[in-house]
């Protein structure tokens, strides 16, 4: 029972990440009709916003130590962050401790700008091109972004720490009257709450604002919205930037769970596409539902008892479910008629 509950929690936080990426993917697809294979790269760029903020906070000047020596036995050149001199040691330490949550603000700004530039500079030229062209160009872009990150940040994962106040584990078993072995990292619980909040925020934005209403109308019938005199192009740009921001903040907050490297976008992209297809192309609710569903099933498939029964199932479960769903519900769980069926 304990193990099942823990795998359920695992599925929730993994599903949260899948859902956030798939939400942006399907939002772009539903409104712009673009299959964006660079969406995983946006997730990775968000993660590197956290790394960048950490590095910015640690920009230092050298001070030659009078007592300590380096690995060659020469006087040690200590690195003293400028921030420490500006705000004081305690405040600098506090800011450093909270660098991951604070990086959300950097990610919103950076990813918003990246989203606008990407849509205006590249994606808009592919609105009327076949999906194969869109996939090729965005996949190429993802590779370029990955290699740029590798060039500037190296190939190894760069660990990011959660704030000290949420870096331990919560005794979840105690909350639910389960065994003492049911402990779960605080940050993963925070991530689940964060992803649920972002998903709720995006849905609320689309449901309760005029802009959201126009976007939803555009998802139903883009041509009609244009005929009503609404500048749909500007809306598209904003939608693309919104999707980039969602992916970016999801990536930034994921860094304490998975140290980011240049390839993390690709790792998530493939699964997120499966999530979108299972959920139903263009369906926001479907993306979220499928994200959590596949995350949970993937976790359960990794249990030793399941592995003993069907060896290797954990690596194929997501694709197996995709096959079953598509055979029984060809449009996915919540897919709409007419999407990608022309």
């Amino acid at each position, binding site marked *: 029972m304990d193990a099942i509950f823990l795998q359920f929690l695992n599925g929730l936080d993994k599903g949260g990440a899948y859902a956030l990426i798939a939400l942006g993917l399907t939002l772009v697809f539903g409104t712009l009709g673009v299959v964006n294979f660079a969406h995983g790269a946006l997730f990775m760029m968000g993660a590197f916003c956290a790394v960048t903020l950490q590095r910015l906070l640690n920009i230092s000047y050298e001070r030659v130590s009078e007592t*300590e020596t380096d690995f060659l036995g020469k006087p040690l050149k200590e690195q003293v962050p400028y921030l420490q001199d500006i705000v004081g040691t305690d405040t600098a330490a506090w800011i450093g401790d909270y660098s991951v949550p604070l990086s959300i603000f950097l990610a919103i700004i950076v990813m918003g700008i990246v989203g606008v530039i990407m849509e205006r500079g590249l994606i808009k030229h592919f609105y009327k091109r076949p999906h194969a062209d869109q996939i090729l160009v965005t996949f190429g872009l993802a590779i370029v972004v990955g290699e740029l990150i590798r060039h500037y940040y190296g*190939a*190894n*994962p760069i*660990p990011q*720490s959660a704030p000290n106040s949420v870096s331990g*584990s919560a005794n979840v078993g105690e909350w639910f009257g389960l065994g003492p072995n049911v402990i779960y*990292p605080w940050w993963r619980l925070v991530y689940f709450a964060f992803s649920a909040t972002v998903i709720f925020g995006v849905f609320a934005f689309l449901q309760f604002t005029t802009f959201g209403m126009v976007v939803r109308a555009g998802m139903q019938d883009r041509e009609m919205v244009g005929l009503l005199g609404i500048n749909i192009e500007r809306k598209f740009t904003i939608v693309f930037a919104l999707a980039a921001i969602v992916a970016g903040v999801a990536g930034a907050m994921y860094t304490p769970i998975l140290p980011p490297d240049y390839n993390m976008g690709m790792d998530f992209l493939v699964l997120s596409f499966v999530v979108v297809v299972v959920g139903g192309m263009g369906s926001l609710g479907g993306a979220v539902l499928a994200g959590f569903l596949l995350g949970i099933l993937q976790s359960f498939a990794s249990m030793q008892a399941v592995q003993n029964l069907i060896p290797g199932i954990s690596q194929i479960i997501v694709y197996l479910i995709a096959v079953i769903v598509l055979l029984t519900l060809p449009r996915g769980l919540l897919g709409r008629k007419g999407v990608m069926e022309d």
Partner: protein
Amino acid sequence: MSEHKDLTRRRVIKSGAAAAAAAGATPYFFTRAFADGHGYMNAPKGDTVTFGFNVPQTGAYADEGADELRAYEMAVEHINAGGGGMLDTFSSKELKGGINGKKVKFVTGDTQTKSDAARASAKRMIENDGAIMITGGSSSGVAIAVQGLCQEAGVIFMSGLTHSNDTTGKDKRANGFRHFFNTEMTGAALGPVLQNNYGNDRKVYHLTADYTWGYSQEGSMIKYTKPYNWETVATVKTPVGAGDFSQFITPILSSGADTLVLNHYGKDMVNSLTQAVQFGLAGKQVNGKDFTIVVPLYSRLMAQGAGDNVKGIFGSTNWHWSLQDEGSKAFVKAFGEKYGFPPSQAAHTTYCQAILYADAAQRAGTFKPSEVGKALEDFEFDGLGNGKVLYRGSDHQCFKDVLVVKGKENPTSKFDVLEVVEVTPRAKVEYPVELLGGELGPYNNG
């Protein structure tokens, strides 16, 4: 008509494929070697000889590959100059500037940590660039694949960072030589240290990378902890590059295990260790004992990636920059002054391999693979940072002291992440050649 067209096209394709297959199967290396008239592959002409450095320049091990390349470049400088770095402390004094009167130049290839890419780049360096020797790599899968290719081609392969028993065990080849240690030695060195620190009667859960090195490492750890009544609770294979290991870690919490052995390397080690610590395993009490994590193969570069999570965790390593013997100090000084940071174990083993090959060729007076190989076989040397080392002739495996290390509690710099807790003497990690199986077979000179 279209049928005829199709038929014709198919025939053309079939003929082309057959021709390509025939060309591939033709012993290209063989014909070229004898065309040279020296009786061996890529016999150097003129006043230079070419080494082929085949390292991961892209992919997950690119940082290690970059460090290997730095070490190789420095080794070439020292060989051509006849001194510098560990060449000055090396017990053999044969190298006086160049090898057999020729200066060394080099070409590089990118293994991408993929067997097929590594073989393709090695083949290119042998065929197009005339490399006399191939060296490098950061994966056992890649090392075994390239070693096989070099055997077919008729050049010497001096492997880089490869730790699986199979490289000099069941997959050993006459043309292949390994300086790096293996999982058998890790187990022999680490087992007693683990028992000293954590006692007998433990229940062990293994998370193991699902490929040759992972199986080899898991087997060795089970073998060398069994005498202390360390019982294996489960051995779970994890896909290489899984990223998020949480679904593999949570079952450990309720498994009754009090010890986790992470048979992971590189990015997988960084991620699985980080996540195991996040799940509170490191501070847990099970069976009345402190829960223990072990990382059998450490790399300083990877330990840096795992940050504070490595603190207090035991493992083994081939070499560490903090060693205080004359060879290690000379190497760290030369490398540190040239590049500004200490060398990794990958840099050390590749530097040694380049120097050892050069010295063997000099002693043999030729670059002919069989002669260079014989000069390496049962060659005993000192001054390269691991005490007295033997290149055993019967399996082409180096035997030397093994370092047991622990994640440092209070690091003084970002490089100072591991501390050496024991130097296990060579005699304690030696094993009979029959233990790991395999046959060297005859040398191939091309």
